[in-house]
């Protein structure tokens, strides 16, 4: 028997090799060499691993190549996303460095787990095969279950992990069954070949040949699974609980990273495999996006717990990001990338401020903690105000431009009603974001909160705030990159 080897170019998976290699190495280094009370060193080493992953992307820049029988692809879209993911992971690690020992939950495994999760993001951004996308989603989910339960003597954390796991496994069931049906229809799990199958079917289509029914059912199941991961209404019910129970840096990490990675994979699926059956899934996704924007933003109004409020707000933002996908245009993908970057920086910054204010053993995250912050810590309050304005989409912040771009893209694609809902819900959103700002600057302090301002986290907040402003004034710094990514996708 002769076996034909597929063409294999290791360069294509270089970022994956580097990040998973450093995660594995870090796991062992932490086990053997890092003393128990000093796990910060592991954190610094993890940052080094992220740096190497970023450097591994440099020689690949501008490359357009797929390898491993077309399973993995490297292009500007993937590399741009990789940069965003590395930034997200780096900020998460930096804001965890002091948080973990302060909460008494410091363990060395935290940092390798973050690296594994980031590796799965990279995998999702690069894969063009349903098997790999399944593996990426599952790797991402399983590491996040563990990270969610990381504060494990605390019951709320365990409970959040359990809920997340049960619903995540449920979603995984839908995903696999969806893939099975798609495979049954098309005989392949490769996205490019699925498209070939569909175009052939379309050209040979007569009244006698039925449409791709199995594929559409399978596609619907896959969409349900993705909706669970991205937290689209009505599959969002786990989000507030899980986000509240998880350790705050983990909440920050998954509120931006999971959404970005899962949406990247969804974009690959819909742009590569399913453009010919657009009429079937675009309306569904549009309705999901509309419901998500409404429920997320209206739900956030009722919250007095800031962490829960940000959880609902992240549900709402998922709706806005999906607008970029629904638009199915070059501008839509650009808008998606820009929104993801702006939202990541803003949300991570906001969570960093919450971490600074979070006391040990505290699980209230009450609005009262923010009262009078403007007098006690003016700089911190100004940064938080900036993040809130950016989340609300007020100029001149990055969040404003992100919203502007997704709305413009959706408008161009003739989804005016969706834009209308988006604008109305943004107006609702301003109410609860402004509430925090009002608390900070116009109320007297209710109780004494000692902010835990360490050097690393202060710098992180400052840099995030600076970046939010910078991209608000000069979006072109990133837009060029986004445009080249779209060309890479063939959009």
């Amino acid at each position, binding site marked *: *028997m*002769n*076996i034909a*080897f597929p063409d294999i170019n290791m360069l294509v998976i270089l970022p994956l090799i580097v990040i998973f290699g450093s995660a*594995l190495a870090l*796991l*062992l280094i932490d*086990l*053997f060499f890092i003393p128990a009370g000093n796990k910060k060193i592991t954190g610094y080493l993890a940052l080094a691993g992220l740096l190497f992953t970023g450097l591994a992307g440099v020689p690949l820049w501008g490359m357009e190549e797929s390898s491993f029988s077309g399973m993995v692809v490297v292009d500007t879209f993937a590399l741009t996303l990789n940069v965003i993911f590395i930034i997200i992971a780096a900020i998460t690690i930096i804001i965890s460095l002091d948080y973990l020992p302060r909460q008494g939950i410091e363990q060395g495994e935290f940092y390798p787990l973050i690296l594994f999760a980031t590796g799965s993001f990279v995998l999702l951004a690069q894969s063009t095969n349903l098997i790999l996308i399944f593996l990426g989603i599952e790797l991402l989910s399983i590491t996040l279950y563990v990270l969610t339960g990381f504060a494990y003597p605390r019951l709320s954390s365990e409970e959040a992990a359990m809920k997340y796991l049960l619903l995540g496994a449920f979603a995984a069931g839908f995903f696999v069954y969806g893939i099975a049906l798609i495979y049954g229809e098309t005989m392949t799990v490769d996205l490019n070949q699925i498209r070939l199958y569909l175009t052939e079917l379309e050209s040979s289509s007569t009244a006698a040949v039925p449409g791709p029914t199995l594929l559409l059912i399978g596609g619907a199941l896959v969409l349900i699974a993705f909706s669970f991961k991205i937290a689209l209404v009505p599959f969002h019910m786990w989000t507030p609980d899980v986000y509240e129970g998880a350790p705050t840096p983990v909440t920050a990490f998954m509120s931006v990273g999971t959404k970005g990675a899962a949406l990247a994979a969804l974009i690959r699926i819909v742009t590569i495999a399913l453009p010919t059956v657009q009429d079937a899934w675009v309306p569904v996704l549009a309705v999901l996006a509309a419901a998500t924007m409404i429920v997320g933003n209206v739900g956030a109004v009722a919250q007095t717990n800031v962490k829960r409020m940000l959880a609902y707000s992240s549900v709402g933002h998922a709706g806005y990001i999906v607008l970029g996908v629904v638009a199915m245009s070059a501008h839509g993908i650009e808008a998606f990338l820009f929104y993801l970057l702006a939202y990541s920086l803003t949300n991570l910054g906001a969570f960093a401020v919450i971490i600074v204010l979070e006391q040990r053993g505290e699980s209230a995250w009450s609005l009262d903690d923010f009262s009078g912050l403007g007098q006690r810590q003016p700089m911190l309050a100004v940064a938080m105000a900036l993040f809130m304005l950016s989340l609300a989409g007020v100029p001149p912040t990055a969040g404003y431009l992100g919203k502007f771009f997704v709305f413009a893209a959706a408008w161009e694609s003739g989804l005016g009603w969706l834009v209308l809902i988006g604008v109305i819900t943004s107006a609702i959103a301003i109410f609860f974001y402004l509430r925090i700002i009002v608390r900070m600057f116009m109320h007297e302090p209710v109780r004494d909160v000692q902010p835990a301002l360490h050097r690393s986290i202060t710098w992180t907040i400052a840099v995030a705030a600076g970046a939010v402003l910078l991209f608000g004034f000069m979006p072109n710094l990133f837009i060029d990159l986004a445009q080249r990514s779209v060309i890479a996708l063939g959009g």
Partner: protein
Amino acid sequence: MLEAYLPIFVLFLFALFVAVFVISFSALLGPQKPGERKLKPYESGMEPIGQAIRRFPVKFHVVAMLFILFDIEVVFFLPYALVFRELSVYGLAVMGVFFLILVVGFVYEWKKGALQWE
């Protein structure tokens, strides 16, 4: 098409018949002398100690779960075993990498003391 299943159907019928026959005839014809001893859990005369349903220590649950994980990973060696000659050095290298990753997991659990019994 369905005729192919006729033997199975006959088998079902036969099984049903045997079950009904054995139970009903032993109930009808057999002598019945119910007594206190006959209703005890152990007719040998052993007195039962405590409830049958009770908690027992699950010291080994960690080992059991780790076993499941490594047990399942072996599934990836099976297809390789069928073609290892054809894949030659390349296949060996790839499986070596896979094995190395497994070993990292194993070293981790060992060093963490997950295999310690007490």
